[in-house]
């Protein structure tokens, strides 16, 4: 199983936007390889052909290098194509076209040294207010105890459960230092900046459990800031939600 997901090149892609990225990366590498090999063949040819043993007298006049000019122009045009044709559409889709909150599953993720706090809104679908002064080891999110919207909210640590084939809108924050939410199978990296709430979204296309990593050095536990992304079917996801809500919600105060 593991072998199929991860390998020596791009891992399995389970996101809707990842296909274009993979395409871009692959096209780009073919281009790079072609350029490098072509250039390298010329270079090695020169090294062998014009070694002092074979060519005791050098030519003073420069060679006419029309081809190199064409190659350079081609590189420019190709880079422009990559930028405008492949990179920018993905980015604007990823950045600008956030899904409407009504159709997306909204989840808050709050990074801290060295864990991912995941905040679900509970049965009412409304997130309770969070503020740093309420943070305790028992209230890791810092939910305001006086906010009724937060009563049925629940959190999980390092476990992000999402339904498959639905837009997931994540609002990412950090409690302390800069972290970076990275899921290779989703082709996704997003820094978590303290003092900012950054929205981003994705849509998972396959079910399964995958690693979430921190990509920005955040201290001694950086390497162990590992989360688990659980992509579930809608039914499984709902069952999981219900289980959490039941456990959390009996209206009383808990320690």
């Amino acid at each position, binding site marked *: 199983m593991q072998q199929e997901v991860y390998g020596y090149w791009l891992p399995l892609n389970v996101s809707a936007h990842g296909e274009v990225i993979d395409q871009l990366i692959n096209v780009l590498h073919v281009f790079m390889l072609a350029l490098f090999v072509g250039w390298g063949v010329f270079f090695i040819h020169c090294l062998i052909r014009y070694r002092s043993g074979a060519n005791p007298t050098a030519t003073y006049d420069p060679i006419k290098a029309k081809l190199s000019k064409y190659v350079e122009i081609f590189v420019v045009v190709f880079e422009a194509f990559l930028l405008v044709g492949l990179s920018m559409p993905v980015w604007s889709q990823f950045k600008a076209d956030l899904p409407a909150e009504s159709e997306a599953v909204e989840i808050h993720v709050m990074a801290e040294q060295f*864990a991912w706090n995941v905040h679900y809104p509970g049965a009412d679908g409304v997130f309770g207010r969070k503020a740093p002064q309420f943070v305790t*080891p*028992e209230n*890791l999110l810092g939910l305001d105890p006086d906010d009724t919207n937060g009563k049925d909210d629940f959190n999980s640590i*390092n*476990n992000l459960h999402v339904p498959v084939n639905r837009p997931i809108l994540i609002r990412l924050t950090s409690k302390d230092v800069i972290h970076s939410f990275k899921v290779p199978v989703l082709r996704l990296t997003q820094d978590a900046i303290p003092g900012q709430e950054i929205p981003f979204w994705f849509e998972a296309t396959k079910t399964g459990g995958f690693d979430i990593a921190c990509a920005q050095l955040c*201290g001694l*536990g950086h390497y*162990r800031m590992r989360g688990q992304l659980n992509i579930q079917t809608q039914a499984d996801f709902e069952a999981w939600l219900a289980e959490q809500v039941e456990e959390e919600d009996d209206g009383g105060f*808990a320690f």
Partner: protein
Amino acid sequence: MIKQTIRVLGALGLGLALVSDVVAGGGIAGTVTFTDGPQKRRTLKLAADPVCASKHTEAVKSEALLVGEGNAMQNVFVYVSKGLEGKTFDVPAEPAVLDQQGCLYAPRVMGVMAGQKIKILNNDGTLHNVHPKPKINKEFNLAMPKFMKVKEVSLDKPEVMIPVKCDVHPWMSGHIGVLTHPYHSVTGSVGTYNLADLPAGSYTLTAWHEVFGSKSQDVTVSDGGSVTADFAFALADLKKK
């Protein structure tokens, strides 16, 4: 020369006096209760680290407030907060032990003497980092990767209480009280504490709980006598804190 002799004799006398004080002292004992009875406890999200989850067979609940039979309140730190100023006591050679078991601190609340060695254990086979957040003592942040099973540290200045956290497992929360004397105790599952061999005198005794804060009462200990001092916490204390 004579002066020196007098000084030495004086010092010896003082030492004797101190020793005899201790020998002839009394004790304080008591029970701490939580009048509102056991409360609902949150389930800890041990699934955050599969290693932690694998150490437990059933769901683990928060240990922030443990109330046992007869409302006995566990993990209350009871110590002499006033009355021992100026006296010095030997630091125990034995290290105090703070274990990390199944991604929980054992004990959750502990007292040590300033300068006493604290032996921190990690047999969990996962990364813990021991990160106390003192106000007076020097802060340290110690990573204990799975290969590091033991580490010794010490806290040099009196400070009640120092929160201890593991940043990798945010639910892990402990507290260490550092004192200049050995008269401190932490209530167990039956809610009792016992401070023995206390020199005769008047003291302020303080009970501290991580959620409900501190409560104090004055006690007088006479030679050979034993005093009872009980404490009671209630939900109402939460508001006051």
